[in-house]
């Protein structure tokens, strides 16, 4: 995403390659927006986890179902939206991965990591699947938007 653009979106297949692709795009966008290295890693990992959920748990690798990934710069926020076409998830059934009885579970940490790394994580059902919204506040010298300074 060029720094001057407000929003860019991609339609991606339900494949493992999409997960790596989404992560790479997030790294590029976060880098271009001037996030520090540790926050670039956090944003990239949150997007990767969101893409994993969309491809595996949402679309279940179905070739006829797509994942849409969008990056938007709105004021002091980077807003990332990931939509799938799956059946959705019941958040109340996702156990707390930090509970002692769940520490040795081999899955169930994706949403927890997203919430750890992003300022806002919203998950909601849509008419066609699930929408995940990840928001990271822009800090530092680029806060307020490079667009505004041009």
């Amino acid at each position, binding site marked *: 995403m060029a720094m001057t653009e407000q929003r860019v979106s991609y339609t991606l297949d339900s494949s493992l390659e999409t997960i790596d692709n989404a992560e790479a795009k997030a790294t590029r966008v976060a880098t271009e927006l001037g996030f520090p290295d540790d926050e670039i890693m956090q944003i990239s990992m949150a997007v990767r986890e969101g893409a994993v959920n969309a491809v595996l748990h949402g679309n279940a690798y179905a070739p006829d179902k797509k994942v849409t990934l969008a990056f938007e710069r709105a004021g002091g926020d980077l807003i990332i939206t990931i939509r799938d076409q799956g059946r959705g998830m019941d958040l109340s059934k996702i156990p707390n991965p930090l509970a002692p009885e769940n*520490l040795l579970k081999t899955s169930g940490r994706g949403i927890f990591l997203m919430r750890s790394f992003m300022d806002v994580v919203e998950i909601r059902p849509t008419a066609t699947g699930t929408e995940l919204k990840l928001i990271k506040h822009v800090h530092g010298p680029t806060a307020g938007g490079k667009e505004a300074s041009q």
Partner: protein
Amino acid sequence: MSMKVGSRQVDGVTIVDCSGRITLGEGSVILRDTVRDLLGKGNKKIVLNLQDVNYIDSSGIGELVSAFTTTKNQGGELKLLNLTKKVNDLLQITKLYTVFDVKDDEASAVKSFK
């Protein structure tokens, strides 16, 4: 960069040198297969040297947990060595640092099995 592993023996302990990324897909599968292969050959003292692992996602974390429990269930022990800051931070926020036996030098890791 995909994941690569190489194993060596030090005083009866198997050191698995891992590099690259432990993520959903190939990286997780390589780690799983490596640990299962070692256990199948009777190598039950295992150290995963993660010095050159620069990235782990939630699937990779799950694979580390799986390796730990699989080894333990077969009467063995699996320890982690030389965590990078990124991996260390991930284990801290997921509280898995309290589960794994984490070492920061190979000699003490090997010695700790005795």
